[in-house]
């Protein structure tokens, strides 16, 4: 059973055709990022840095809890990827 992923609105104009919400077969947050990268090359670089880790001002929530790349995903989990409130 796939997980349900919501992408940040500010990301979408960078990858024409990418939807706000999609279903992905993945058992960790890292695997979600892998799939996004395959479908839209370059997308992982926007969400993750080279440490590797989720970027400092990007948050990923899984079932309402803040997650890391290593966070496991249960079948059907809701994965929200959001931009932090930052800037000026």
């Amino acid at each position, binding site marked *: 059973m796939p997980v349900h992923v919501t992408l*940040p609105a500010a*990301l979408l*104009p*960078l990858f024409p055709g990418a939807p706000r919400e999609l279903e992905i077969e993945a058992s960790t947050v890292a695997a979600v990022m892998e799939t996004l990268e395959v479908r839209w090359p370059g997308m992982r670089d926007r969400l993750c840095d080279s440490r590797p880790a989720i*970027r400092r001002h990007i948050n990923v929530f899984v079932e309402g809890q803040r997650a890391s790349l290593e966070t496991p995903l249960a079948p059907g989990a809701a994965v929200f990827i959001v931009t932090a409130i930052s*800037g000026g």
Partner: protein
Amino acid sequence: MAQQTMLLIGTRKGLFIAESADRSDWALRGPYCETWPVNHAIADPKTGTIYAGGGNEWFGPAVWKSTDQGKSWTHSSAGLTYGEGEPPIKAVWSLAVRDGVLYAGVDPAGLFRSTDGGETWEHVQGLRDHPTRPHWMAGGAGLILHSLLVHPEDANRIWVGISSAGVFYTGDGGKSWEPRNKGTRADYNPEDQRYPEFGQCVHSLVMAAGEPDILYQQNHCGMYRSEDGGQNWISIEPGLPSSFGFPAAAHPRDTDTLFLLPLNGDIAGRYVPDAKVAVYRSRDRGRNWQALRTGLPQENAFVGVLRQALATDRLEPAGVYFGTSGGQLYASPDEGDSWRCVAPHLPVIVSLETLSVPR
């Protein structure tokens, strides 16, 4: 052939483009690059392709690319990394193109090269392998590689300016590097350490037209000229109102002509001296300076200009342009003799470059 002049205006909130057929009436368009902070944008003079380098707090560094004069854009950061476990790259700060090869300077300081028009990048490892690297100190804007000069005939010869590590030079395409800071001061150091081998706070580095070994640098601590590719620097501060400022711009053809925009001092507010805006021009390599004020605000102008926000075009007479950190864009069609504000309400202007295209 009639020329259309384009100004590539990098701002904190995207890239803007100003265009004019006569350098009098300007039309502004943008913002582009999804309003990302754009630290530097250039055009490949051979193809007209525009590249814009920057970084977004959410999404990291990227180089944007447009092959249709800004109408549509793609972006990439593939390969812009020091690898796992190393500090992530925050932003692209400087771009240069020579013979189809694109170069990018980044924060934290390092140099990257692309041979496929910015689609993928490879790290020029030699610079960060330099033994002085662990001792480089970040300046106010970060540890940024902000100045990037490639020799016009020999692309193996590259000069970079890093704040606040100083000027570094390679003669072998980036494999080995040497500091080139002899004669430039570090006034903030203890008295007996003011002329170190590296660690000077270079603010901008430019090359004289037609004489690649004549370099100028505006430094945190002085204004300098080198006539031997940076091996030795001499002060050219006499006649200037201040030793402090950020940008410098070379004339497009006249080897001896240089433009500056001095600020009042590093602990004096960092705005134009006496709150009166003036561009300084030298016609003799910095021996004498002339303040150019016609059309520029001369009262209550608490204006700063950032390191990459002064540029010249290639027309005759040369146009000169600067953008302020308050978002005003000024243009002179006559080598600085007269000025006009052509865009008063832009975001913080970080960089300016020019492009002339046939119309």
